[in-house]
């Protein structure tokens, strides 16, 4: 009885949360790379798949950023610059700091 109670309660909650997550997840279409400037930065301190989401959120708030994608295994942040916009590296470095990571070098 106890096991069933737990099973039903926790299953229902997780199905709901995961289902909503899956349902709300939009399809991100890759822009044609030749139309955008791509910058790649080394980021130190990202150690798990859950770590880099906070950094991506902060970088995407920068007006000149079209898209940001971090990879914790490669320790890289890939930034797509909005066409016609001027992206200051200092804004990216500030976002990396506010995400509690450390700026390495600009790779590209």
């Amino acid at each position, binding site marked *: 009885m106890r096991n069933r109670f737990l099973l039903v309660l*926790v299953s229902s909650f997780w199905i709901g949360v995961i289902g909503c997550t899956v349902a709300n997840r939009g399809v991100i279409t890759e822009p044609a790379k030749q139309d955008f400037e791509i910058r790649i930065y080394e980021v130190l301190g990202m150690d798990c798949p859950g770590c880099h989401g906070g950094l991506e959120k902060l970088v995407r708030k920068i007006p000149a950023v079209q898209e940001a994608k971090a990879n914790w295994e490669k320790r890289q942040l890939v930034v797509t610059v909005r066409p016609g916009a001027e992206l200051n590296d200092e804004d990216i470095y500030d976002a990396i700091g506010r995400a509690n990571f450390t700026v390495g070098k600009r790779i590209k």
Partner: protein
Amino acid sequence: MKRLFWMLYVVQIALVLVLSDAIAAGISVDAGLTPAEDRWILRTQMRYMERDDDPTSMNRKMDRYTLNIVLAYGLRRNLTLVLKQPVVHQEISMAGSTSKDTGLANLSLLAKYGIYRRNTPEHTFGVAMTFGLELPTGADAFTSETWDVNSGLYMSWRRGSWASDFNIAYAWNGLADESSRGTNPGDELSLDWALAHQFSIGGEAEVALAPVLEVSYKNIGQDRLYSHDVADTGETILYISPGIKFTKSSLILEALAQIPVWQEQEGSQLKRSTGGFVGIRFMF
């Protein structure tokens, strides 16, 4: 995406089945690292605690289910605010009869401050401290009826796929008494050491699985009433806790079994049995 959804569901069912007879403390890996600024974390845990092995002839037994709902927000890069509300369901058996009760436990407000953080290509090291306040909800049997203060120091170290944490926390219970009984609950000291090893799954660095092993020591002092110790209160426990943490981008599933390897209770209290929890964290 559908395949991932069903895979997560199967993992969750397996964890529930394995750990439905357990109690636990939270997985403490990364406790010394504060989340990014403007990061929200919604966390729920379903815990189970069982107490039995009655030293008296009353054949008492207690089952407690706690649903912890936690909301955290990264106000600054080194300052996180946390709100926690446990909901408790408890069943107590004694001499053949069973009583059941459900209600809110203490509401916790917590601030976590990152004191130090060093990120290098080889390792990550962070130290954080917490300062928290527990407020009595006043509604039912699960609230402490006192205002309690707690503080902790958390250290996290990561090198490659290995992670280790050491945490120490102390709770000063009963600083301001809301009850007419005047009982001052015993203070609590907790020490915790954790080791984890992370395996990356798939090629896009989006999924990871981390087995965890924790060793925890907890000492709860005796309650005091009119400068005298209250009988049948206070205990010391040493746990070994194997667990697992599954991370998929902004979603973390975690489970921990807590096995008491040594314990000592004052008076005729029930012993703690193996317990555990399953939990989910959603970050946005």
